[in-house]
């Protein structure tokens, strides 16, 4: 192994295996790990150290997730024993919390799930359409004042919603939109989640310009370039946008609390909150059961969309 050429001046026309060996991500330490090293032997058990590290990381992860797991297990326990058993394995599986919680409020819980689903779907669709359009303009079109508009767009990302919520409320109540889903969906159709514009601008800029130049020579207009070339190539960015919009909207509490005050319009977060007022503090079982139900969609999005989530955060720094 010691004769592995790791010099950076090695030529590219060497065999593929060698080319793989000298790929830039391959660090010296990785190479060194393969070389029997005298110094390595002197250290006391690198294997034991690694094991301890893994045990610590798993232990810490367990502490982090313990409240969640405990809530899951408590949702299957009868109310009386929730607080007597801090353990995770319920002695008996009991689904009455779920049936009780489902019907505890004015409407069955499915009603609130449906309301949330409508708001989420509308928001996802709105963000996908409006933000990708704006991003195309910022990434590919030349127009007067582009740097200025771009800067304004970036600044709106940092604007706290609380500064505009009062006049928004007045505006939407003039339009008689309070207690409809319109105040929650229409702004998304108007690209007010500028964050996603930025995310897609970054992505579009990474796509080769030659593609759209070739299309232009073939007589394609911007509409077709956008629809036929940019969007199909941007599926990862669109997926990231859809996933984050889903999670944020599903969790959103502040604006839904303000714009939805009639019980039949309640979404899941608002319904859950009302639960606390409607029932006394002693009925934690049904409350936990519905909390679990409310977290399931996020959990699934997390499970299947993790790749895009991590990429999205790493490139733009969102939550």
């Amino acid at each position, binding site marked *: 192994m010691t004769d592995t050429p790791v010099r950076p001046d090695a030529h590219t026309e060497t065999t593929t295996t060698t080319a793989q060996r000298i790929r830039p991500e391959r660090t010296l330490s990785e190479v060194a790990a393969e070389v029997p090293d005298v110094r390595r032997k002197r250290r006391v058990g690198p294997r034991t150290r690694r094991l301890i590290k893994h045990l610590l990381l798993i232990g810490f992860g367990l502490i982090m997730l313990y409240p969640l797991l405990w809530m899951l297990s408590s949702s299957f326990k009868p109310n009386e024993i929730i607080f007597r058993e801090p353990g995770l394995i319920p002695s008996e599986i009991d689904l009455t919390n779920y049936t009780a919680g489902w019907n505890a409020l004015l409407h069955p819980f499915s009603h609130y799930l449906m309301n949330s689903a409508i708001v989420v779907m509308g928001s996802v669709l709105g963000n996908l359409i409006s933000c990708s359009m704006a991003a195309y303009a910022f990434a590919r079109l030349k127009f007067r004042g582009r740097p200025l508009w771009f800067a304004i767009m970036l600044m709106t990302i940092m604007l706290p919603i*609380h500064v505009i919520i009062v006049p928004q409320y007045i505006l939407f109540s003039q339009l008689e939109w309070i207690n409809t889903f319109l105040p929650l969906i229409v702004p998304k159709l108007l690209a007010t989640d500028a964050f996603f514009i930025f995310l897609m601008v970054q992505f579009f800029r990474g796509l080769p310009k030659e593609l759209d130049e070739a299309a232009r020579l073939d007589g394609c207009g911007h509409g077709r370039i956008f629809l036929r070339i940019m969007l199909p190539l941007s599926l990862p960015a669109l997926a990231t946008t859809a996933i984050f919009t889903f999670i944020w909207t599903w969790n959103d509490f502040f604006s839904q609390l303000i714009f939805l005050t009639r019980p039949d319009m309640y979404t899941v977060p608002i319904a859950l909150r009302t639960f606390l007022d409607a029932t006394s503090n002693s009925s*934690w079982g049904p409350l936990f059961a519905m909390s679990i139900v409310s977290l399931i969609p996020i959990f699934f999005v997390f499970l299947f969309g993790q790749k895009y989530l991590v990429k999205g955060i790493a490139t733009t720094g969102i939550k």
Partner: protein
Amino acid sequence: MAMIQEVAKTRHASRETRKGDGKAAAVFLAPWFIGLGLITAFPLLASLYLSFTDYSLLEPPNWVGIENYQRMFEDARWIQSLGVTFRYVFFSVPLQLAMALMLAMALDKGLRGLAFYRSIYYLPSLLGGSVAIALLWRQVFGADGLVNQFLAYFGIQGYGWVSHPDYALGTLMILNVWTFGAPMVIFLAGLRQVPTMYYEAASIDGASKVRQFFSITIPLLSPIIFFNLVLQLIGAFQAFTQAFVVSGGTGGPIDSTLFYTLYLYQQGFKSFDMGYASAMAWFLLLIVACLTAVNFFASKYWVFYDD
């Protein structure tokens, strides 16, 4: 990260006067322009105007000058809400970032099962903002909650943490620290950019791990630390849901979790004192803007851009 560089770039960019695709741009930007005007800019200016008026939705706004702003500084609850928010921000954000950096470093450098650990630590960030987690927190730190059950094993009689004025805010800080996963993922991406050869050279020269951390990791990671700091500070100042749910909308016990935004909500949408709420909102904007500016200014001295 890139966002900050973009802002810096546009400041220096020469004005582009090419008109090339003006028409197409107008079409593609139409939704955004309408949104910017109607949903963002107009409300922003309207709330500035309203902040100088007395307005309750029922009657037309009545101009009162700077009265709302004067009232803030005489309002004990407003001062309390400012104090609560500052305490929350300045304790929980640094703790959260320190945790994120620590775990990111533990997970770095080809650790087996990295993706698995990353998922576990990241999950709370996705759930942390939800009402369900706030309800869970209320129970975990309640009088006969999970924490006290564990303390009871050691014979310690705990408080009802969420209903004790000295500790309620602390439980919310812990909740914020619990969501360290998002900055951790950003740190992980950043650490991957630090060339391993620096560490190798340093350890050949006999530098200790601690020394390597302060002389290599921190300087090279400083732009990302800075970015995370700005982001988390702005986010923490606007925290609302958790305090609202844990305190049942009151900000109690005895206003100990009265976040700024919570008080703003109470004034604007419970008392319908919308002029006063607007003044509070503009003051919040001022704080956030100042903090960001200070951060940008300070970053010149400690952030190291390797160009």
